[in-house]
């Protein structure tokens, strides 16, 4: 049980950054100064050999900054949300030409046009995003390609947009102040460099904040599994459109700055091959890595300069950049981002070993402190009992979106459970943790004391499905099935293959709409309510084929499930307001709490990929527990588990019901597991409800035995029904 502080707090996020843990050293200040002052760096005062920084380098630096912005734009859209864009040059073009249009027609100068262009391109990108709601993957790529094609064929060849003569130029007047302070004349590329630097730094900062926030996790969740995302209450439509808007805004900003920088652009700069070049920046950077995008931006700008300078290389730029793209995607999908991390790790290891040897022989000297180790104990001081108060069910209803009221939310009392055990020990955290962990270990707990109210009718209904009927074309898949889950019950739904239990389950969970019948959750009719809203109301679920987010660690997977409880908005994520930090801390504490409760410390920091299957099941259930949904729906939780793992799963279910007060509905192939675990069970066969009752009765029911094992006498000529249409009840 030796857990270090880092293990508990999870990966570095805004909590750590906001508490000032990354120390600023002289080294950083020098680096920052060099970066900011780069265009004016003189060579002469230092020595007589180096020349001043040549003008071309400043031009390249500006180019690299623009590439970095476009890289961010694609990293967010393609890397984080998984939506490919093959037409990003069009967004950049729209940004550039809109800037020109604003200057030409309305005399709007640069700093003013900047936000306008951002909003315009965000809006256009969101429009394209609407298409993305209907099509995925390959088709989305084609849609973006066609979008770029339309822009090229129509928008960029229209005189009203591009200007007469097919090129847009803007006058110095709108970007510089020749009579004012010369330093702020933006037609001076060295000055513009500062602007670009500020924009890139700001965008980078905001994007990092976004990545480590609720919004960023919603993005990753959508990329990993849309099904799982909605089951955790994430509004996929909203977040996809948001991603398109953010991405479009960044690309538009890049176009805006490009116009200011070049002062004259033509449609050729935004053709299809340029889109691919931009995609190359993101892919070579590692698609998901912001730092990688910056590195790739610098690399591509340097390549542009190199191929321009060296005659011998002329015409090879596209071949080399696209070759890089193909090489990365086929051979090294991590790109520069992964490469950079690997280099840093190696270098640290080397430096550490070198320093050890070096300082060891140095009398009186100590090993230099490790940058990483200090300070991450900070968040341990947050009192787990205090954390919970802002999100109990009593928060007032709030308007969300245009018309929707935030659905009434119910939740189980996780904090209460912790408090119960944690009460006396406010002093020694370590001891407390041990105690909590020990007393809470469901694997060794005696759970046999729990008693349900004897009569089923005295238990309050949590979920009621009445007369569920599902028709696929002519096929009657589910015919008038009714079932109920009552408070703290474990209810099983079984049936032979193809009996319609999965269809019933999906209709209840909201994955497909029933042809007839109603589903009520906590007494409210939710038959037509989308899945993510059901999740917000308190319906958690797991999937038959485990739907964890494979690129994330266990901790991060659980963190995604704090989505609904976290009420902060995108803007506060972008600029990292105090509210966002607080919400983030709460989220982390909540996850740590569940990790404590379910005893998942050992795997918390491990990536999901490669964990044993039984653990993955538990993590998926833990993720549903993090949402604090009082109702848990399990789709074949025992499939793929061996006997020991199945037994452990059964214990876990008892624990969730008995100690956390959850109600559970499970469908399962493994009938033995269901009969031993459930309080009540339903049997469907041929789309109809065949039997219901306590397991002991159901097991002895001759109809059930017949449904599972077939009729004792075959060739039942007495049943006249010919086709899938069900036989008798």
């Amino acid at each position: 049980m030796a857990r270090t502080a880092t293990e508990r707090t999870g990966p570095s996020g805004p909590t750590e950054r906001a508490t000032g843990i990354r120390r600023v050293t002289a080294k950083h200040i020098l680096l920052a100064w060099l970066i900011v002052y780069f265009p004016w760096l003189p060579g002469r005062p230092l020595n007589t050999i180096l020349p001043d920084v040549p003008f071309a380098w400043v031009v390249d630096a500006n180019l690299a900054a623009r590439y970095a912005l476009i890289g961010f734009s694609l990293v967010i859209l393609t890397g984080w949300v998984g939506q490919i864009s093959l037409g990003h040059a069009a967004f950049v073009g729209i940004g550039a030409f809109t800037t020109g249009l604003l200057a030409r027609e309305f005399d709007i100068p640069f700093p003013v046009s900047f936000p306008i262009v951002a909003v315009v391109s965000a809006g256009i990108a969101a429009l394209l995003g609407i298409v993305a709601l209907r099509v995925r993957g390959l088709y989305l790529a084609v849609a973006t390609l066609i979008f770029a094609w339309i822009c090229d064929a129509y928008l960029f060849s229209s005189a009203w947009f591009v200007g007469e003569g097919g090129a847009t130029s803007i006058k110095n007047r709108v970007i510089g102040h020749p009579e004012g302070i010369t330093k702020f004349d933006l037609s001076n590329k060295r000055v513009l460099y500062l602007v670009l630097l500020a924009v890139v730094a700001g965008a980078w900062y905001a994007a990092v904040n976004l990545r480590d926030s609720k919004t960023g996790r919603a993005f990753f969740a959508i990329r990993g599994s849309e099904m799982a995302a909605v089951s955790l209450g994430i509004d996929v439509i909203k977040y996809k459109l948001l991603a398109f808007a953010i991405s479009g805004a960044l690309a538009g900003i890049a176009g805006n700055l490009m116009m200011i920088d070049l002062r004259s652009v033509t449609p050729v700069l935004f053709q299809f091959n340029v889109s691919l070049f931009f995609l190359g920046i993101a892919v070579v950077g590692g698609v998901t890595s912001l730092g990688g995008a910056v590195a790739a931006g610098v690399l591509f700008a340097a390549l542009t300069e190199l191929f321009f300078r060296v005659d011998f290389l002329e015409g090879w730029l596209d071949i080399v950049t696209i070759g890089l793209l193909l090489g990365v995607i086929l051979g090294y999908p991590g790109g520069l981002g992964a490469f950079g991390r690997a280099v840093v790790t190696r270098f640290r290891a080397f430096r550490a070993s070198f320093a050890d040897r070096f300082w060891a022989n140095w009398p009186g000297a100590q090993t230099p402190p490790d940058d990483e180790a200090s300070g991450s104990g900070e968040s341990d001081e947050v009192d787990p009992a205090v954390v919970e108060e802002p999100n109990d069910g009593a928060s007032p209803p709030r308007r969300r979106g245009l018309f929707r009221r935030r659905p009434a939310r119910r939740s189980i009392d996780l904090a209460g459970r912790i408090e119960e055990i944690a009460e006396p020990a406010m002093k020694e955290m370590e001891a407390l943790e041990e105690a909590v962990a020990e007393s809470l270990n469901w694997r060794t707990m005696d759970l046999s004391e729990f008693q349900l109210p004897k009569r089923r009718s005295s238990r309050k209904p949590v979920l009621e499905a009445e007369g569920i009927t599902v028709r696929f074309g002519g096929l009657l898949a589910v015919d008038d099935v009714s079932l109920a889950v009552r408070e703290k019950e474990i209810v099983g739904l079984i049936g032979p293959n193809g009996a319609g239990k999965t269809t019933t389950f999906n209709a209840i969970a909201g994955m497909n709409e029933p042809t007839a019948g109603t589903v009520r959750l906590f007494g409210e009719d939710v038959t037509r309510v989308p899945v993510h809203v059901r999740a917000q109301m308190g319906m958690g679920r797991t999937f038959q084929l485990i739907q964890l987010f494979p690129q994330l660690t266990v901790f991060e997977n659980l963190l995604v499930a704090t989505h609904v409880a976290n009420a902060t908005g995108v803007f506060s994520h972008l600029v990292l307001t105090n509210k966002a930090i607080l919400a983030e801390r709460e989220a982390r504490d909540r996850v740590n709490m569940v990790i404590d409760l379910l005893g998942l410390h050992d795997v918390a920091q491990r990536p999901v990929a490669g964990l044993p299957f039984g653990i993955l099941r538990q993590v998926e259930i833990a993720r549903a527990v993090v949402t604090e949904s009082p109702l848990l729906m399990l789709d074949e939780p025992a499939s793929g588990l061996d006997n020991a793992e199945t037994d452990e799963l059964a214990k876990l279910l008892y624990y969730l019901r008995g100690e956390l007060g959850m109600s559970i509905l499970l469908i399962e192939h493994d009938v033995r597991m269901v009969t031993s675990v459930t309080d009540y069970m339903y049997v469907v066969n041929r789309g109809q409800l065949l039997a219901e009752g306590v397991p002991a009765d159901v097991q002895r029911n001759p109809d059930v035995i017949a449904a599972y094992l077939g009729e004792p006498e075959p060739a039942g000529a007495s049943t006249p029904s010919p086709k899938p249409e069900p036989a008798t009840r």
Partner: protein
Amino acid sequence: MTPRARKKPERTPLLEVSAIDVFYGPIQALRGVSLALGEGERVALLGANGAGKTTTLRTISGLVKAAEGEVRLGGESISRLTPAQVVEQGVAQLPEGRELFMGLSVEENLRAGFWTRRHSDLSFKQQRDRVMDLFPILRERSGQQAGTLSGGEQQMLGVARALMSNPRVLIVDELSMGLAPQIVAQLFEILREVNELGTTVLIVEQFVHMALANTDRAYVLAKGEVVLEGSSADLLADPALIASYLGEADQPVEASANGKTRKPARARARKA
């Protein structure tokens, strides 16, 4: 309905699965499964869903590779063959969910079934006519798209397609899936005829009674292991069989909550 007396598989069995372990990524699907089918036998492979029946069949037909163990046909290992080669060796399979070519006509489905024999002495027309004799209804439908057939007709087409390769062993996964009982009875009747013509038959089936009534011997799988095996008549009377499907009815619910591990009913009714 009484199983006819058969020569016991004392010599080398025709198809032998010996102690195979199969993994799907982190999940172990089969743990040391062994089966043996004698020439001309009808054998059932039973078990609850997820027990590993389909995986066993996929391993036999080469779609899945075993980590340990071997599959032998007539004494020779076929573990390393591709599915195509397994079919050529004479093991044809009607996979779970039928897996017909739904967009192709009945005739074309049969041509696909004949694929591995297309360069042999066998003529497609003769073979098709021989198979169609078993399924007169398919002859009427030969130009129709497979996807438009009824469930029972599709299942017949599945069997017919598998028979087109003139197999020594016919493997049928979930014969009765989604079909009305009398259709299933009809299909079992056809399989009996096929078997009498000399083909060894391995059937995976959910409807235990029906499967046992129509086979000579059976194996029962649970959680990837063989838990019961024996002659079909004996198994039919064995209470452990129902337990392996539905659990033991007298087991109190609280038992597992106290942390006792349940083992599958391991009462092995091995025929000595």
